C-alpha cells in the first residue's frame, strides 16, 4: 500500500493503541493500516468495541490518559503527527483535522450560548476578530439550514438534537479543515433528521471538496454516503474497498455476515440473520484470526495464525485465509 500513501491525505501505518483496564491491556486498535484519499468519504464500520472511535481519537490525539499508543505512525500531508510535540500539533487540530463527536448534548457547554462556542474555538486558535468569526459562523449555520440569529443567541438546551448536531458540524468547519472525522454523528437522531444530515454531508462534500472519515455501526449509512468502506472487527481492519464492490461482493466472512445482520426494508426476511457468538474480549483476544470463533468457514490455520492483508480485487483488501494462496 506504499504507492497509495503518496496520494493519500492521511496514512495510518501499523497503529497499535491500548486502553488500561483492571484486568490488563485492552488492545483497542491492533495493527491498523489505512489510507484516506483526498476528497473521499471513507466509512469505518464496526460494532461497539471494535476500536473505531479509539482510532479517531488517536488521529486527533485526544485519547483519554490511561490509553497509550504502543506503536505505528499517522502521517498527515507527509508529516508524522504522532511524533510532533503537542504545541505544534495544535496547528493541526481543528485547522487541518476536525471532529464531529457522537453526543451533541455533551459536546456543547450548557452555560455558554452557541455564539460563544464559535468565538472561543476561534480565540483558542488565535483568531481575535469577533466580527469575522460571527460572519463565518452565520454563513455556516445558514448553509446547514439553520437560522443564524436565533441559533447563535440560544443556549444548547434550547435547540433540538438535530439542530445541536448541525451546530457541531458548523463548529467543526469553522477553521476550514482539510479532514473531517465524524464519529456516529447521527446515531442519537430520528430518521428524518438523520436523512437531512446525510444529505447535508453529501452537499458539503460536493461544495467544499472536504475529505471525511465517517464512523458508524450502521452499514446502511455507509452504503448511502461513503466512497470507500473499512470494516473493523476487534481492533483490526478486516476489509477495505470501494463501497459498491464491498456491498455487492463482500470478501471477508465478517463483512458478509454484518451486511446480512441488518434488518432491511427490502431484502427477503430469510436472508437476514444474526452473527452467532459474541464479539471477543479484547484483553485476551482469540489467537489467529479474531473472527474465527464466529466464522462459518474456519479452517485450521485460522485458529493459529493471523491472516495478512492482501489485495483480493483491484483496490479491495481483505485479511482472511480464504483468499491467501498457499
Amino acid at each position, binding site marked *: 500500500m506504499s504507492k497509495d500513501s503518496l496520494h493519500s491525505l492521511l496514512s495510518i501505518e501499523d497503529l497499535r493503541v491500548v486502553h488500561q483496564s483492571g484486568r490488563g491491556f485492552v488492545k483497542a486498535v491492533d495493527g491498523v493500516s489505512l489510507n484516506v484519499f483526498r476528497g473521499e468519504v471513507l466509512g469505518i464500520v464496526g460494532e461497539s468495541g471494535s476500536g473505531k472511535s479509539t482510532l479517531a481519537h488517536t488521529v486527533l490525539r485526544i485519547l483519554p490518559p490511561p490509553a497509550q499508543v504502543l506503536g505505528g505512525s499517522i502521517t498527515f500531508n507527509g508529516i508524522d503527527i504522532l511524533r510532533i510535540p503537542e504545541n505544534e500539533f495544535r496547528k493541526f487540530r481543528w485547522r487541518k483535522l476536525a471532529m464531529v463527536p457522537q453526543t451533541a448534548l455533551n459536546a456543547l457547554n450548557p452555560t455558554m450560548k452557541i455564539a460563544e462556542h464559535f468565538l472561543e474555538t476561534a480565540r483558542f486558535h488565535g483568531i481575535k476578530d469577533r466580527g469575522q468569526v460571527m460572519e463565518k459562523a452565520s454563513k455556516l449555520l445558514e448553509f446547514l439550514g439553520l437560522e443564524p440569529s436565533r441559533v447563535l443567541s440560544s443556549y444548547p438546551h434550547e435547540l433540538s438534537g*438535530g439542530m445541536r448536531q448541525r451546530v457541531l458540524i458548523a463548529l467543526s468547519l469553522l477553521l476550514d479543515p482539510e479532514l473531517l472525522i465524524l464519529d456516529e454523528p447521527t446515531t442519537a437522531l430520528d430518521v428524518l433528521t438523520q436523512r437531512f444530515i446525510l444529505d447535508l454531508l453529501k452537499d458539503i462534500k460536493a461544495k467544499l471538496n472536504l475529505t471525511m472519515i465517517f464512523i458508524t455501526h450502521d452499514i446502511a449509512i455507509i452504503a448511502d454516503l461513503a466512497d470507500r468502506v473499512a470494516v473493523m472487527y476487534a481492533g483490526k481492519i478486516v476489509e477495505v474497498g470501494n463501497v459498491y464492490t464491498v456491498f*455487492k461482493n463482500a470478501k471477508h466472512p465478517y463483512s458478509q455476515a454484518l451486511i446480512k445482520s441488518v*434488518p432491511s426494508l*427490502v431484502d427477503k426476511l430469510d436472508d437476514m440473520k444474526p452473527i452467532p457468538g*459474541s464479539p471477543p474480549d479484547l484483553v485476551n483476544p482469540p489467537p489467529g484470526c479474531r473472527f474465527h470463533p464466529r466464522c462459518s468457514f474456519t479452517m485450521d490455520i485460522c485458529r493459529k495464525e493471523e491472516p495478512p492483508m492482501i489485495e483480493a480485487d483491484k483496490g479491495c483488501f481483505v485479511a482472511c485465509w480464504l483468499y491467501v494462496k498457499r
Partner: protein
Amino acid sequence: MLALREEVMHMGTPLIEIRNLRVYFSVRRSLFSKRIHVKAVDGIDLSIEHGEVVTLVGESGCGKTTLGKAIAGLVKPTGGDILFEGRSIFSMDRRSYLEYRRSVQIVHQDPYASLNPTKTVFQTLAPPLRRWGLARSRVELEERVAKLLELVGLTPAEEFLNKYPHQLSGGQRQRVVIARAISVNPKLVVADEPITMIDVSLRLGILDLMLELRQRLRTAYLFVTHDFGAARYFSAKGGGRIAVMYLGKIVEIGPAEDVIRDPLHPYTRVLLSAVPLPDPEVSRKKRPIQLKSLDIPSPLNPPPGCKFHTRCPFEVDVCSREEPPLTEVRLGHYVACWLYTKK
C-alpha cells in the same frame, strides 16, 4: 388441556383492548405559570389478540413508550379504558388486577440498568417465581431457573447461574431480562426498544429468540421501536401488524409487509423514504419525500386538525381544521388521513 380450555373461553375476546386511551402529563413552564398538558397519548384505540405481534414505530416523543407503559400498568391514563381479556383493569378486584399485572410483563431498552448489579442471575430470576408460587421447593426453583436460561439460549445454565450482570455481555444481559419477563408465564410482553443497546450483529438473535418463545409459550408482543427495519423483521416474521405513531396518535396500522411495501399515510411514506438501505445502488437512488418542516411541533402545543399537516407535503384544505378518523382502506389496513377519507 387447561391452556386449551382457556383459549376457548377467550375466543373472540382480545387479550388487550384499549379504548380512546389518553395519557397527559402536566407540566409547568415556570413556578408561577399555569399548568399545561403534554398529550403523550391522545385518543388511541388498539386491540391485541392472544399470541399476536404488534409493533409500535415512531420518532422520539411520539408517545410509543408511554403507550407501552400504560398497557403494562406502569403509567396511569388520564382517560379512556384498558380491557384485559374483556374486563377493565380499572374496575377489577385485587386478585384479577394482580393476575393482569403478572400477565403483562415489560422488557426495557437498557439491559445495563434493568438488572440489579449486586444480584446473580439466579438471584434475579428466583424471586418472581417464588412470588407467584410457580416453584414450591428449592429443587423445583433451581430446575425452573435452569429451564428458563436454556429457553433464552444461555447454555449450559450452570455456567450462568452464579454470574453477576457485569460478567455478562449486553446480549446476554438482555437474554436474562427476557428470561425474567417470561418466567411468570405472561400473556403479553411489552418490549420497549429491546435491541437498541445491543451489538448490531446480535440484534436479530434477540428478535429471533422472542419469536421462538412466542411459538412455544404463545406470548403476544407489543414491540416498541424507532427502527423500521427491526419493526418489519419482527412483525412480518411474527405474522403481525405495524402501527405508526405521530404526536400521541396512531396514524396508520396494518399487516407488517403491507405497511412497509405500500405505506398510505404521508408520514409513513416520508419516514420510509428517508431510511438508508444497506445497498449503495438502492439507497442512493431513493428520492426522499421532502417535508414542509423538519421539526416536530411541540407536543405542548400540537397543531389543530391533523397533527401532521404543518409538515405534510400533501396538505389539503380540511387538514388544518378537522382531525381525520382512522379508516380501513384495505383489508386490515387503517389510515388516518383526509387523502383516503371522503369528507
